[in-house]
């Protein structure tokens, strides 16, 4: 079934090149993402049963375990929701004559190349190919970020391509050193296979591995948007079309984080404690949260606000894996899931807002609930959820984070962490008040009511997901995260 995950997006790309009809493009997209959803469900089930999933025909190339299935499920569920949302979004754009038919074709084929490369990154065993796939995600999204083709979009796309390609080149240097560290341990034919490296982690050369980890953390950290390498992220996430922003924030950042986590597991197993990696990751994590806090407090553009919030949450996840206790790793994975869904909802809602008001400035959006009842409500609740208000899911994972930090006896760190989150909460709530109170500006061009019907449905689904997981965690999810945690912590 795993094969379907690889083949379906490729077929979708080919079909969307051939087909010449908007309706069938939409149908292809939704069908493909639905098939991928089913395949992911079946794969999840078999991972639950057998722990790892590999196929003989690919040798050891195809490899899924609990760590990858968590991120894979996030990617595919978000991909499915985004593909539904895109139908309404693109039709709305088409109605306003903002884009031409050809652009939609381009949009879908790029989106499925993007999906394919993310799925590839999450399902391969070879770290080298994982790198190739993550670099391919940058290239696939380059033109999607520049989709609007105005000056700002072009600037964002250029920064995105240059900073991410160069940053990820650092990760390649790290991977070369990883290969060097394993040169007498793993045979040349099996070089860079993650499971072999992980099994033989104790025999790798420690000092080369340290150097390798620094490069890899900086490289994939650039892609995951950690400060101070985050500068591309607000630009790209705010200039991309909203469904793509949702994919970038909800799925892509996690894929980059996933690669870091994989190598973190090897390094920590080799060094036998997490002091070295912990110091680096905690520093990057807290720096990202702090940088995001500063920019969120003074933000004037709501999409950039969401982008900075993504940096913040990536910082929290990095922090969680830096502390490296069972509880913190559990919190890290949970936070990854919760952040993805909440942030996707916010970006999709912001897409509707942007189409309605045609501005990104917070000060120009007034009386949102009256104009867009569903998107507005989703945006309101999403902002509360992302800032860590109970009873939503982010609150649960953040409270787990606090507990893990304090139980690991990082008291100062815990204090700073709470303080920064409080700042971010204030920053986001101020935005909220600005947007939701006040009368809508009287403008005859703007009609009230939702225009993106499928999008509204998606928002409702996401709203249900984040509210329910905040109150009750399914046993299935708990088991998955626990087994992922066991893999990472080793033993």
């Amino acid at each position, binding site marked *: 079934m795993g094969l379907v995950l690889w083949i379906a997006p490729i077929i979708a790309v080919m079909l969307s090149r051939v087909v010449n009809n908007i309706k069938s493009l939409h149908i292809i997209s939704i069908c493909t993402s639905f098939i991928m959803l089913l395949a992911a469900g079946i794969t999840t089930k078999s991972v639950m049963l057998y722990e790892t999933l590999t196929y003989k025909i690919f040798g050891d190339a195809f490899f899924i375990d609990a760590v990858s299935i968590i991120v894979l499920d996030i990617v595919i569920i978000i991909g499915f929701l985004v593909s539904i949302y895109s139908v309404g979004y693109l039709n709305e754009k088409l109605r306003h004559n903002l884009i031409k038919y050809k652009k939609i074709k381009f949009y879908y084929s790029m989106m499925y190349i993007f999906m394919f490369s993310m799925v590839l990154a999450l399902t391969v065993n070879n770290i080298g190919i994982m790198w190739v796939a993550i670099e391919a995600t940058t290239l696939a999204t380059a033109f999607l970020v520049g989709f609007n083709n105005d000056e700002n979009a*072009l600037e964002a796309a250029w920064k995105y391509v240059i900073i991410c390609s160069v940053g990820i080149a650092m990760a390649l240097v790290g991977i070369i050193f990883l290969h060097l560290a394993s040169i007498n341990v793993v045979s040349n034919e099996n070089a860079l296979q993650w499971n072999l490296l992980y099994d033989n982690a104790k025999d790798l050369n420690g000092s080369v591995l340290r150097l390798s980890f620094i490069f890899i953390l900086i490289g994939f950290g650039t892609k995951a948007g950690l400060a101070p390498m985050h500068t591309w992220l607000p630009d790209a996430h705010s200039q991309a079309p909203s469904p793509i922003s949702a994919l970038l924030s909800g799925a892509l950042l996690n894929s980059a984080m996933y690669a870091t986590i994989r190598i973190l597991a090897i390094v920590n197993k080799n060094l036998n404690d997490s002091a070295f990696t912990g110091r680096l990751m905690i520093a990057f994590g807290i720096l990202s949260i702090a940088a995001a806090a500063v920019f969120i407090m003074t933000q004037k553009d709501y999409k950039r606000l969401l982008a900075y919030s993504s940096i913040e949450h990536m910082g929290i996840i990095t922090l969680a894996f830096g502390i490296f206790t069972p509880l913190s790793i559990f919190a890290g994975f949970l936070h990854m899931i919760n952040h993805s869904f909440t942030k996707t909802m916010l970006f999709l809602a912001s897409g509707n807002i942007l189409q309605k008001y045609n501005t990104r400035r917070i000060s120009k959006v007034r009386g949102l609930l009256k104009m867009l009842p569903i998107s507005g409500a989703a945006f309101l609740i999403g902002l509360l959820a992302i800032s860590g208000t109970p009873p939503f899911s982010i609150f649960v994972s953040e409270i787990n984070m606090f507990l893990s930090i304090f139980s690991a006896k990082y008291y100062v760190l815990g204090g700073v962490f709470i303080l920064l989150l409080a700042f971010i909460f204030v920053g986001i709530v101020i935005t909220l008040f600005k947007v939701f109170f006040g009368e809508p500006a009287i403008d005859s061009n703007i009609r009230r009511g939702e225009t993106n019907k499928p999008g509204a449905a998606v928002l409702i689904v996401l709203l249900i997901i984040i509210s329910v997981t905040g109150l009750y965690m399914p046993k299935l999810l708990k088991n998955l995260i626990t087994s992922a945690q066991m893999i990472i912590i080793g033993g």
Partner: protein
Amino acid sequence: MEFFFDLLSVLVLLSSFVLVSNKKITAYIKTFQIQSALIALIAGIMGWSIAVNEDKYDILIICVIIIALKVIFIPHLLYKTYGNIEYRVEKDFFMNIPIIVLICCGLVVFSYFSVSNIGSLTGFHINHQVVNSLSVVLIGFFFMISRKKAIGQIIGYLVIENGIFVTAMFSTNGMPFIVDIGIFIDMITAVMIMGIMVTRINKKFESINIDKLSKLKG
């Protein structure tokens, strides 16, 4: 044999110094071409000796790919991109060249100290040509920082890739074959995308000076 690799690694390093001290975009492209040819030579010699000794031909194939891509195709593409944009004489660097060169010398020292410590800590044998190739990576980074033109940044990216490739060659006799192929595909796509973007930037901003790309802030 080792002396050839020593010499070639030094020549690759030297070519990146030449690149940094160049002023004209066409000269960047030419220097990049020469550097790629040197790298192809390294891959060729290494591939030949492995083909003779172990009967494996993947590095030779990689050598052919390098010649086709980096020596012929990409420089051609860059010349074409450069031809598409309007020619304007503008200063392309922030600092004067001797200072840039001195900073690059500092980078060489830095990479020496960061790599050579590995060996002394554990007695692990690390091939010291890696210092040179890692310096090429760092100089590529610095080149990107020091140039204002978009094409200069593409060249910087390519030099980083070259440096990484040589690092892989010298440290581990190259990456696994399929990974290498993947890296080449990524690289050629990246360069093509960047080339298209340069043309678009030139159209929208009427310059390829990336100083003009400064609207998105905060």
